[in-house]
């Protein structure tokens, strides 16, 4: 009998797992996809919001594609109960699916600030396609949009909101913007840049509640300040979707704990993406990244192993990039490790800042900030990633970078980093387009 794979979740990791299984077996096995939503890419929703792409552009595994890949689907259904002893998944409509192996790829959900009025109509999250549709229909020219939370998700939609000619205020509970992507010096530079582009920033602001007021929303803060908004977007964090795994026997910490083959504590149950707590490439410790590149790699490795390959995963490199008003902000690896040897350089007149973090002569983390069209930025973003990913010993180049932190390229090339990176592939073979 053909092997029966069940994939729970149609996001980045689920889709990559399906494509990788099919790349391996050309259609022999049975694949069933359970997904609460039609598969789409969350990463591109900000471009749909900004109207630079049509809604149809966001879909990944469309019905014809799923048919071509010979994938059975239960779309609009959620997993309700996992019986790992009986190898049976039960869905929220009572359907039972028997499997030989299963992938947990249920992702994460947005969390709203726990204040009165957070669930009023007109207070939006921006996470799912459905929520994106809700925001798209509300933002009009001249509208005042208040974004609660100044984290990565909020920043990915900042350009789109400004592009729609809305007025934007960003409020953040922490004393600085992007607290998980920037240190204080970098945050100060970005705050000045945004002020210059007409964005109002209020940091250290704790929301106390939201009230409806003649079609608008009045946001009250703990310090007594108030702001009136036409549209409120809450981007106050996410949590992993794990509830359905209760009593399943799958070991869970902050996420599903997986080994270097993406297997959970139950050998025929794999986990990938935002729900999977797996090895961080730099620290070697289990980590919950909840980022797109990690979800993609997890999906491919899990898919290959479910298809019968033996692929060992080296671990995920934490990385993020966001562009706001043509200023790039990118981080790699352990960019905020307080125990690392770090040096930073600021060039305020060029809006450039970077921080390099070291363990002996190896770069373990980097933060880079600069104008998107500045040669310092475009030259160095990828090379800093390569230096952290390869863990190359930079020897005397470390001192060079301490003196000239904006001159990464000669260090990258002359340290032979290219040679270290060229043999690296995630699946031990050349990648092919899906």
């Amino acid at each position: 009998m053909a092997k029966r794979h069940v994939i729970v979740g149609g996001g980045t990791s689920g889709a990559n797992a399906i494509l990788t299984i099919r790349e391996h077996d050309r259609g022999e096995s049975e694949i069933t996809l359970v997904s609460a939503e039609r598969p789409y890419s969350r990463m591109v929703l900000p471009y749909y919001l900004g109207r630079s792409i049509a809604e149809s552009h966001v879909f990944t595994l469309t019905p014809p594609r799923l048919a071509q890949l010979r994938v059975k689907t239960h779309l609009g259904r959620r997993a309700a109960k996992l019986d790992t002893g009986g190898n049976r998944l039960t869905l929220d409509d009572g359907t039972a699916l028997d499997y030989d192996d299963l992938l947990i790829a249920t992702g994460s959900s947005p969390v709203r600030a726990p204040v009165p009025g957070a669930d009023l109509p007109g207070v939006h999250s921006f996470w799912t396609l459905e929520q994106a549709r809700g925001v798209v229909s509300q933002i009009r020219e001249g509208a005042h949009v208040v974004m609660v939370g100044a984290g990565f998700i909020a920043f990915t939609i900042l350009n789109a909101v400004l592009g729609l000619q809305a007025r934007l205020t960003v409020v953040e509970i922490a004393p600085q913007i992007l607290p998980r992507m920037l240190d204080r010096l970098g945050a100060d530079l970005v705050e000045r840049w945004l002020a210059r582009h007409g964005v109002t920033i209020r940091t250290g602001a704790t929301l106390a509640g939201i009230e409806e007021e003649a079609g608008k929303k009045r946001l009250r803060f703990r310090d007594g300040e108030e702001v009136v908004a036409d549209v409120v977007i809450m981007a106050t964090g996410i949590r992993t979707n794990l509830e359905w795994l209760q009593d399943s026997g799958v070991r869970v910490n902050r996420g599903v704990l997986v080994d270097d083959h993406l297997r959970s504590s139950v050998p025929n149950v794999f986990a990938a993406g935002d729900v999977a707590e797996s090895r961080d490439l730099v620290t070697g410790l289990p980590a919950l990244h909840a980022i797109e590149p990690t979800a993609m790699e997890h999906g491919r490795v899990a898919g290959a192993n479910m298809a019968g390959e033996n692929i060992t995963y080296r671990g995920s490199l934490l990385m993020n990039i966001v562009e706001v008003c043509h200023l790039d902000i990118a981080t790699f690896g352990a960019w905020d490790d307080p125990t690392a040897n770090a040096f930073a350089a600021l060039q305020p007149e060029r809006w450039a800042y970077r921080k390099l973090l070291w363990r002996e002569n190896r770069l373990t983390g980097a933060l880079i900030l600069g104008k998107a069209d500045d040669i310092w930025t475009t030259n160095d973003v990828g090379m800093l990633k390569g230096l952290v990913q390869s863990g190359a010993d930079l020897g005397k180049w470390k001192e060079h970078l301490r003196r000239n932190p904006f001159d990464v390229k000669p260090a990258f090339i002359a340290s032979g980093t290219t040679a270290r990176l060229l043999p690296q592939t995630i699946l031990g073979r050349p990648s092919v387009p899906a």
Partner: protein
Amino acid sequence: MRCELACSYVQTGAFQPAQSVIRVSPFEGHTSYAPFTCTQCAEGWCLTACPVEAIAISPVGAKIVQNDQCVGCKLCTIACPYGTMFYNPETQKALKCNLCGGAPACVVACPTSAIEYVEAETADWLGAFAADRSPRHLERQAAMAEAR
């Protein structure tokens, strides 16, 4: 730097070396130079990272950006560990070496025949060259820093 001019012209329609996808690095205090561009690596970090499958492999084996698919999210620019994935602010699309469809403009433009387009093993052609031309320069820099 004629390769940068030729490249930017073919790729973007303008002579702007800052938009070239081949970039020349000086070594040993500008006494030698090394042009650096995409190796068309086996992993294709850009290709696998793209959330909308905008990167394909062309008949000549180059990873190429399909502009009608690319949304400009820049994920490929951080996924590529070689720093050879760029972004064109005018088109708001990712920009990389596509080997000019099999007739690279940089090769034609190079006045010293330093760039050749041949079938060869993918390798780090510049690492040893650059390493060889760096130590004296690094030592001189260190000595100068100490003198200050």
